[in-house]
């Protein structure tokens, strides 16, 4: 076997509070006589005690270094988490954004003294609009779901201004991410679920039957969560527009189209990007991300405040009167935006499209190599990801078992049990970052699991065998929640 497998150095590490020793110090501050300083505050405004650990610097470093070794990361190896676009995060990006000229710039700095960052923001607003085929783009949203919230808020503001009070529904295909319906609900819209057809796509007749003057629009992920491109996209957007609605594009899968085609050219009115996915700013163990939103011309005035404009060679902030409002403090996760800016310059106009081309090639290669071993519910052509399922697995082996068996073979598992329209889904997204030998090794591991499931099912059912912990009791965690460490545990 050529796949990496897993055998590792792991040192035991307690919860940080258990490392605490009274009187230990890990911080360094200038010497200063602080006697009596607390009396500046009246006693009733002061706290009594503060339960934080007492540690030396080396204690803290060892603790977090050891914890870090308990994570599987993209820099360890293949991380085919579907819909999450775990592509390589260039090291130069990390280095350049740590320049104190960026990190030490306060958000209330008057514009003339913040021209570098403002220029980058202005350029990013423009470039992200250009890449998606939009008129303008906001950088404010802090994550994909926050971008969805913002984009749907823009749609709400548009119909408010039009005086159209009837349009309170948004159509969402059943294959969509859970954030889509939640973002609509947060904006006060009612969700109408559109059932995907036998090809995993939006059927035009089904769509037609759902459209009426109460529908504000449709929320569409394209390619969808099966990796299937809605090839009727032009007909879909026209039909929704003709019915007076708007089309929201969920940019979660933008990596399939980056530099190859533009959602704006397909009639998408508003779309959020995920900079941590498509533009490689790292995922950070679950954030920070960034979810910029691009819009067509007629929605520009509803973008959240503020945004950067250029006037007589000076970059500065501006507000729009018809804006949906402010969606957070300050201007977005600038540290994340900077990395995406650098990423775009790394590829440039010459190479940006190669990301999508290689991502789609890699996904189709995996599909071609594994389709004889794993069941594919939908046979449609796919782009950047592929969704298998466990329906033909022997010996009651489920998707969860396959995921755990992959861990033993040295991989982060794919996304499991999503999309919901595929029972026992295994959603694999390789991205453009992986070499052919990495894919071949993964394919070998997947085939090995399929074979072992027949010959030695216990090996799969008991997986993972090579990790420090295995199959945590999640029911117990939810039934008797322990959400913080307490003394005497």
């Amino acid at each position, binding site marked *: 076997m050529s796949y990496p497998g897993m055998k590792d150095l792991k040192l035991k590490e307690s919860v940080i509070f258990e490392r605490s020793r009274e009187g230990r*110090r890990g911080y360094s*501050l200038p010497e200063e006589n*602080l006697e009596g300083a*607390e009396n*500046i*505050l009246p006693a009733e405004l002061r706290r009594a005690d*503060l339960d*934080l650990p007492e*540690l030396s*610097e080396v204690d803290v*470093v060892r603790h977090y270094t050891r*914890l870090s070794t*308990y994570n599987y990361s993209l820099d360890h190896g293949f991380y085919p988490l579907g819909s999450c676009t775990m592509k390589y995060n260039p090291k*130069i990006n*990390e280095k*350049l954004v740590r320049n104190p*000229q960026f990190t030490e*710039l*306060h*958000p209330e*700095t008057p514009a003339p*003294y913040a021209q*570098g960052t403002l220029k980058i923001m202005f350029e990013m607003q423009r470039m992200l609009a250009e890449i998606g085929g939009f008129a303008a783009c906001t950088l404010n949203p*802090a*994550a994909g*779901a*926050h971008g969805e919230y913002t984009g749907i808020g823009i749609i709400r503001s548009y119909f408010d201004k039009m005086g159209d009070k009837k349009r309170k529904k948004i159509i969402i295909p059943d294959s969509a991410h*859970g*954030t889509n*319906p*939640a973002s609509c609900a*947060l904006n*006060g819209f009612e969700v109408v679920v559109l059932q995907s057809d036998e090809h995993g796509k939006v059927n035009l007749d089904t769509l037609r039957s759902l459209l009426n003057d109460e529908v504000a629009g449709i929320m569409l992920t394209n390619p969808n969560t099966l990796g299937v*491109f809605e*090839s009727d*996209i032009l007909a879909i957007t026209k039909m929704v527009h003709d019915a007076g609605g708007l089309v929201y594009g969920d940019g979660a899968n933008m990596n399939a189209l980056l530099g190859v*085609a*533009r959602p704006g050219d397909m009639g998408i009115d508003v779309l959020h990007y995920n900079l941590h996915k498509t533009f490689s700013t790292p995922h950070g163990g679950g*954030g920070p*991300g960034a979810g910029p939103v691009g819009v067509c011309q007629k929605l520009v005035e509803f973008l959240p*405040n503020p945004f950067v404009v250029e006037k007589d060679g000076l970059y500065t902030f501006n507000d729009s009167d018809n804006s949906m409002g*402010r969606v*957070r403090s300050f201007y977005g996760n600038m540290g994340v935006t900077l990395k995406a800016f650098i990423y775009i*310059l*790394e590829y440039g*106009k010459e190479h940006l499209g190669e990301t999508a081309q290689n991502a*789609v090639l890699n996904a189709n*290669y995996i599909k*071609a190599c594994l389709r004889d071993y794993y069941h594919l519910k939908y046979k449609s052509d796919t782009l950047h990801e592929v969704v298998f399922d466990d329906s033909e697995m022997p010996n009651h082996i489920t998707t969860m078992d396959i995921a*755990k068996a992959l*861990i033993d073979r040295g991989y982060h*598992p794919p996304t499991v049990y999503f999309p919901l329209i595929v029972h026992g889904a295994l959603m694999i997204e390789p991205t453009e970052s*992986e*070499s052919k030998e990495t894919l071949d090794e993964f394919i070998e591991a997947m085939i090995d699991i399929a074979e072992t499931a027949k010959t030695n099912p216990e090996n799969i059912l008991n997986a993972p065998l090579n990790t*420090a912990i295995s199959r*945590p009791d999640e029911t117990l965690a*939810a039934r008797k*929640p322990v*959400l913080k*460490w307490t003394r005497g545990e």
Partner: protein
Amino acid sequence: MRYLPITDKERKEMLDKIGVKSVSDLFSPLPQNVLLKKELNIPSAKSEPELEKIMDELGRENTGANMLSFLGGGCYKHHCPALVDQMISRSEFYTSYTPYQPEVSQGTLQAIFEFQTMIANLFKMDVANASMYDGATAAAEAVLMSHKIQTKRHKVLIASTVNPQYIQTIRTYTGFVVDSIDLLEMDGATGCVAEKELAKIDEDTICVVFQYPNYFGMIENIRKISEVTHEKGALLIPVITETTALGILATPGDIDADIAVGDGQALGIPVNFGGPGVGLFTCKEKYMRKMPGRLIGQTVDKNGNRCFVLTLSAREQHIKREKATSNICSNQGLMATAASIYLATMGKEGMKEVALMNLKRADYLKNRIEKETPCKVAFKGSNYNEFTILTPGCACCALKALAEKGILGGIAAKKYYPELENAIIVNTTEIHSYEELDKFVAALKEVTGGAK
């Protein structure tokens, strides 16, 4: 291209296996007329040395990054111990994703479990979640959550002294959800909510949102607000934007807060032009299952080992979809880790020491400005590391003149409070030496017309 490993030869082999002739065949599901025919209007590809030069030059245009700064207003410059960035730069932390697979994510899971513990302890609240985007969205989500708890009530009250960006964000999120949002107006003498305004709190009030220290740096009459709010059965939602204050200040738990939120940027995270920071969200245990956002819980694995998992996900969008408590999907994982590393490094003594250093500097600066410049301290009462001064002439002119001397003297309150034309909100932290404070006083004296 340096990040794309597939060679031409391999591409050919892969296409053969797939059974198509070219990569463009794989894009055949797309309408051919939407395929990009021309180059995008973006710059040409750059090498690493070129990128270094570009970013260096752009960085130099941020002259404000090097100036002596007294800017606060929801984003604070503190000393960040060197190990914080060193630790979060471990790629095991920053190149992993949401800990969906606990067996290979215990690092993130335990770090965030510890974060929840440290934040709950700092706020003295029962539970903290795994973090929100920032303080403003945390505050907005807190109002939405209280609306779901207080189903029979209609009115949200917000202190006008809450960070105006937070108020705007709350309005965006909840303006069309709740029947009314009213402000508790400020007393011009104290810079805090006027006592008579508390009469607005009644049996129809869903929640009362206030901030301490508030936008002007003042510490509200927290016990009185708490007393009246609870008397009327409304939920008490304090907001803390300057979290280091909790090294010394009475906590949300001390005033029996129901939900308490804030921003953890001050805890070891650079100002970064306003993001990423980390939103903090805490509440009483009885409201735990109504909380937005990710939660990490302790459990045991099949062999009885202590371990950590994502939990109570029946609240979340991937399970509940449109019925979820929020649409939030991620957290600010890496920033939450940074804040935990900061809190672990400072420990209980360090947090107190930092808080006292801030308190002392603000007190020193405030007194010197009052004594030696034509400026006045705007409000009577207690503050932490931020306070408001009144300039004899227009505040913006004074700030402009200070900036020309290399000093960012504070935030003109006029931006959000037009009636406060002469007010500047000044922040100082432990990064300032007393010499720097003296330098500021001298410069301020000069730009505002000399000695008193």
